[in-house]
């Protein structure tokens, strides 16, 4: 099963994204806590893109595709903004985030801890971030 959503690059679109994910994950073989976590991870990536790659420009669009197969869920997030390769970012130390009073960096920790696989590619100005969650048998 495939589900698609186009998100306008404004933070007010995040609640719409969560509602879409809740609906798309309805039939997935994950418990409620896992569904909540993957929703959070996808939102973290999209929020990062909206704020940092697109400067909250509502004219810009992020495309999300959710692919629900027998064994795994794939979230494919595509945009044409400044490339943000999450794999290039080291997971910051939590104590460091606290001391530096940084409000960022936590999202990256969450995405890396929640998702089983993360892929990123940038080709001809199109960036694709793929988040994969395997179903536990």
């Amino acid at each position, binding site marked *: 099963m495939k589900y698609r959503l186009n998100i306008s690059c404004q933070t007010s679109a995040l609640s719409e994204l969560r509602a879409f994910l809740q609906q798309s994950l309805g039939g997935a073989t994950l418990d409620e806590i896992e569904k909540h976590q993957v929703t*959070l991870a996808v939102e973290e990536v999209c929020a990062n893109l909206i704020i940092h790659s697109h400067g909250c420009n509502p004219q810009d669009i992020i495309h999300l595709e959710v692919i629900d197969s027998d064994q795994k869920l794939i979230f494919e997030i595509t945009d044409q903004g400044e490339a943000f390769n999450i794999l290039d970012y080291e997971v910051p130390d939590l104590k460091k985030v606290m001391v530096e009073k940084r409000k960022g960096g936590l999202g990256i920790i969450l995405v890396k801890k929640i998702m089983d696989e993360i892929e990123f590619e940038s080709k001809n100005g199109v960036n694709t971030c793929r988040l994969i969650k395997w179903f536990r048998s």
Partner: protein
Amino acid sequence: MLRLEKTKENRSDILSLFGEVDASNSVILDEAIQELVASGTKSLIIDGKNLEYISSAGLGVFMSYLEDFQDQEISMKICELTPRVFEVFRILGLDQLIPIYPDRAAAFAE
């Protein structure tokens, strides 16, 4: 959608969160905590009973106060998180940095 409610109980300021905290509204949470600090609070309890969702934007607000609160001897506790929201705190390790209690009574007791 996020709604906040400020009350006082047992000489503590209670900040109850209703709904969802994300990058679109975390500033509201930040401002509410700033106001409580400005009013001289020494004991702040965040009631998460009706908090359905919190992203890193909201978690970062709590994180940003931890050191200052330590210096200013302000106590911040969180209580009654739903299991799924608590799990997010746990994944990040925030449960090791902020005391989290099952309910308000337990938060008052310590």
